[in-house]
């Protein structure tokens, strides 16, 4: 398994978040997630850095009068 470089803070964050979600990742997997985390964090920060989104509403739609139709 390829594991990219990460900081102790990355590892601590990942351990905490996986534990909080009660995800039973192995030690090797936790380190792999820690290696992925800087890239993921960079993606997230890219989204928070879009000034045009400052007053934009999210593309979420809640329909208070849904039709619960079955299929199949």
């Amino acid at each position: 398994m390829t594991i990219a470089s990460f900081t102790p803070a990355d590892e601590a964050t990942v351990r905490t978040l996986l534990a909080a979600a009660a995800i039973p990742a192995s030690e090797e997997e936790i380190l792999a997630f820690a290696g992925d985390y800087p890239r993921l964090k960079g993606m997230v920060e890219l989204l928070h850095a879009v000034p045009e989104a400052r007053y934009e509403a999210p593309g979420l739609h809640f329909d208070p009068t849904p039709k619960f139709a079955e299929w199949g």
Partner: protein
Amino acid sequence: MIDVPLSITEAAASLREGEITATQLTEAVLARADAHDSAVGTFLVRFNDQAMEAAAVADKEMAKGLHRGPLHGIPLGIKDIIAAAEGPTTANSLVLDPAWAAGKDAPVVARLRSAGAVITGKVTTMEFACGSPDPTKPFPLPRNPWNTDTWPGGSSSGTGSGVAAGFFLGGLGTDTGGSIRIPAAFCGITGLMPTFGRVPKSGCAPLGYSLDHIGPMARSADDCAAMLQVLAGYHASDPDCANLPVPDYSAGLGSDSLAGVRIGLDRVHHFPEGGDPAVAPCFDAAVGVLESLGATVVEIELPYFAEMLAADMVTMGAEALAYHLPDMRTRWEDYFMGTRRMVATGALISGADFVQAQRVRRVALQALGELFEAVDIVATPTASKGATPYTDLEGGILDVSQVFEYVHTPYWDSVGNPALVVPMGFTDDGLPLSLQLASPHFEEASLLKVGSAFQKVTDWHRQVPAMIASQMAA
């Protein structure tokens, strides 16, 4: 045994003319699967008896003059995250409860059946439509018919490999980050991700609720048009399904003129370092073909490109984990390694991050809408390399994040626009390369028209892998 027509369109014509029967056609493709599927790993389960029965019914109907349309009597494959009544859906996973959707057809499968299609079986997918192959799990390792030492792409691996190998003439894929278009590109076939909401997705195990699309994979744009005609349209069971009229997708097909069509080329984001050297000349040649048909081309840059890749990853992670968390907590080891690594990423994303992704998606939609006032179609390579070698597997998994460094599909999932991919050439190693075309929302007819015109004057889509070339009709 008959010579099997290469495409749905050609097979439909032969069936209509009485040159072949649906029974002969189904027997022939099942025989191909008998001969080659052990090397390709397309099918999870075959519905031989039911397929032959459906073919016999189609023959009786056509003998009486009842023609249900171009899918009547046509053998198709179904990605096994989509429910079909013949058997349980596995999602290529040990985890999915076999009782889920048991005995039921997803609306898309029901529509294909009503159109007279012959369902040949359920085919491999990356587990729950994400992650990567895991040879430690008891499922076939999907292989690319063009080179069985390479991955056919995913997640709709079996649909891609099955069409390329001629085990069926078309099939259903799903696309959340590229899962129709990547295997279509790697397997040298045509695939269409429709507009989000154009095709109902109920009866399909979810990956990303706001990103999932079901769409056709087949030999040609004309074949995809025939399938989309049947698949598209409102269904009340899918809250995201658009209640809009379905146009006639065959109307603009077969033209050899693209006069008046404005095509934007994004070279900025689609030629990363390390890409295959054949991609640029193949792309330039494909663009030249489009120009020769009368299209005008301009250089453009897709807005918020990196942000939409991030939005796809963040949204998919959060939405997928919401679905999988109970099972991930209790059945972690039963999941494929690649699925665990991809889905559990959702635990590293906050609620605010997820909502921000949905805000930026709207910003990008507005900017892209402005771009589509200046051009009708955007053209890019689908990927900057051919199919990924299995030698790149490390510890049993393919690092999907590395694959996405040279696959250019997720942008269109985030914005929900339709995207059609068509073969455009080969690498020096003989692996297919692919052209991606995207249009404004619900303008699939425009895309299919461009794809059809391109394929009228090129034959990349008619190339077949050597392993089955001798069995294919010319």
